[in-house]
């Protein structure tokens, strides 16, 4: 019964987001544009010459980028919601309900992410197929990939929640999200797999949780390693445990110092 309410919260947010289907489809223009630019770039770099860097050729690079960008753009943008609710006091309604606020936000996040991911995956697959053709993946690999993508999105939620909850202490969380975005670009391996990085940067990326949000699942799509899958999932779960505890801790501390404006 406890989980049922969260499922319904997710469901209602899913329905609410479908009210914006037109906007969402329009929003994939940016995704299409980025994929187009990178397809052109890698066609020049890897296409005719057959350039392969660390096992990533033209086709792998395009599919890698399709996957990493789908996760990047398909994640729900809950950061604005949480920060605004804390700042404006709209959190009042959520606090007065028989659910955990973070659980509520998590359910909302999945409701929106489900819509966005479905649209971005569909658009991404269509573009990648048109540009470079199919990539070889088995049904088992796709199942394993789905697990990793799910964990990556949970990890992203927790990082975003931790940053958003800073609104209990600071006036504006936008700069922190700007930094998070850039960390995903670089350490997350948004545009290129970390195998292409200089050694020191690659080491830093692998040691960060950001790597497990984009790089790990995107790489799993193009270069599936069955032997390493268990360790990868364990690492993702480890980061989820750490950041989950941090988010719950920040929330517990923050809610005690909540300063809801009178109304």
């Amino acid at each position: 019964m406890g989980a049922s309410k969260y499922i319904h919260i997710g469901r209602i947010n899913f329905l609410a987001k479908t009210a914006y289907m037109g906007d969402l489809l329009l929003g994939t223009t940016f995704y299409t544009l980025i994929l187009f630019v990178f397809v052109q770039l890698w066609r020049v770099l890897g296409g005719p010459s057959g350039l392969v860097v660390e096992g990533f050729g033209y086709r792998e690079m395009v599919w890698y980028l399709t996957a990493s960008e789908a996760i990047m753009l398909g994640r729900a943008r809950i950061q604005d919601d949480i920060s605004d609710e804390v700042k404006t006091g709209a959190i009042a309604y959520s606090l007065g309900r028989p659910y955990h606020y973070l659980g509520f936000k998590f359910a909302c996040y999945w409701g929106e992410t489900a819509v966005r991911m479905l649209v971005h995956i569909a658009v991404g697959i269509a573009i990648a197929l048109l540009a470079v053709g199919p990539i070889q993946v088995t049904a088992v690999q796709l199942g394993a990939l789905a697990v990793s993508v799910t964990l990556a999105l949970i990890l992203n939620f927790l990082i975003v929640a931790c940053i958003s909850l800073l609104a209990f202490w600071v006036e504006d969380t936008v700069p922190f999200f700007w930094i998070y975005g850039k960390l995903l670009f670089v350490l997350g391996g948004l545009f290129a797999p970390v195998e292409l990085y200089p050694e020191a940067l690659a080491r830093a990326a692998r040691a960060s949780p950001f790597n497990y949000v984009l790089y790990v699942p995107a790489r799993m799509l193009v270069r599936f390693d069955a032997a390493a899958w268990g360790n990868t999932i364990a690492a993702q779960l480890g980061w989820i445990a750490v950041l989950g505890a941090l988010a719950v801790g920040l929330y517990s501390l923050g809610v005690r110092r909540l300063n809801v404006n009178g109304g």
Partner: protein
Amino acid sequence: MDDVTAIKVRDLVKVFKVAHKRPGLAGSLRAIVRTEHVDVRAVDGVTFSVEEGETVAFIGPNGAGKSTTIKMLTGILYPTSGEATVTGMTPWKQRQRLSRSIGCVFGQRSQLWYHLPPRDTFELLAHVYELPVSQWKPRLTTLADRFELRAFMDTPVRKLSLGQRMRCEIAASLLHAPRVLFLDEPTVGLDVMAKRAIRDLVLEMNREEGVTVLLTSHDVGDIEQVCRRVMVINHGHLVLDTTVAALRRDFMKSKTVRVRLDSPVEGILNIPGVEVLKRKRGNLKLLVNTATTSMDDVLAHLMQLGTIEDITIADPSTEQIIAEIYASGR
């Protein structure tokens, strides 16, 4: 807790630390290095109790501490000190458990899902409160009939009028049959008809289900028509706790009348118990002492002066009532 006590508050204090920045560039630079804070005592030692089934107005000017008190009583804010129980529970310690026995409406916030019809929010709330279908479906039918929601139950909230939305907000807060209903400015921004509808509905729920109502409002009309008891808070202190009848008798002795007549008013206007505050051609602003003069008499006098093109009759503001309370030496 006594069986009949719905809300019990003792010496409740809430101090906010508010960042204070000195003016100018120097002040901004200084604030980067060291933020100064000022303590603001929003609620300062408030004590009261509310019996089950009572309808209590909690009034005061902006920043008086009424919303802060309600937010502490609903468990949203932690008090700096003091004690409170609502239906026998300490709000900030048992917030989630308490949420099942209280309902809240914050007039300036919405709990409805903006892009979805109200029905979806109601269904979601039924799941959130873990209500069995056999309980919430008949309850929703009853509320939809009583609040006249049927016509727009399936219309997206964004397309509803403010009055329709507020009816949905209150119905949503009552879905889980709470024992105490906190209404924080539920009529803010509504027109006269919508305000009346909301007041009637709240009163009806109180009479029929025995729901305890604690209402904050700037609108004296809300207080007069819904509540039997009124508490006045100012600067975080409870300055008056009395019946609405006593408040009306002792501190609401006047009404302000603004009237526009079709022709300029000539000569001295001499209506007993009426003070002319402003006059310009056919426009008059009058202060009527309702303890000595009935509004019927005032209107009869005005109609003798000419045809009334427009008229508004306003109760004293909460600020004026508080000024009266202080003037009375209480």
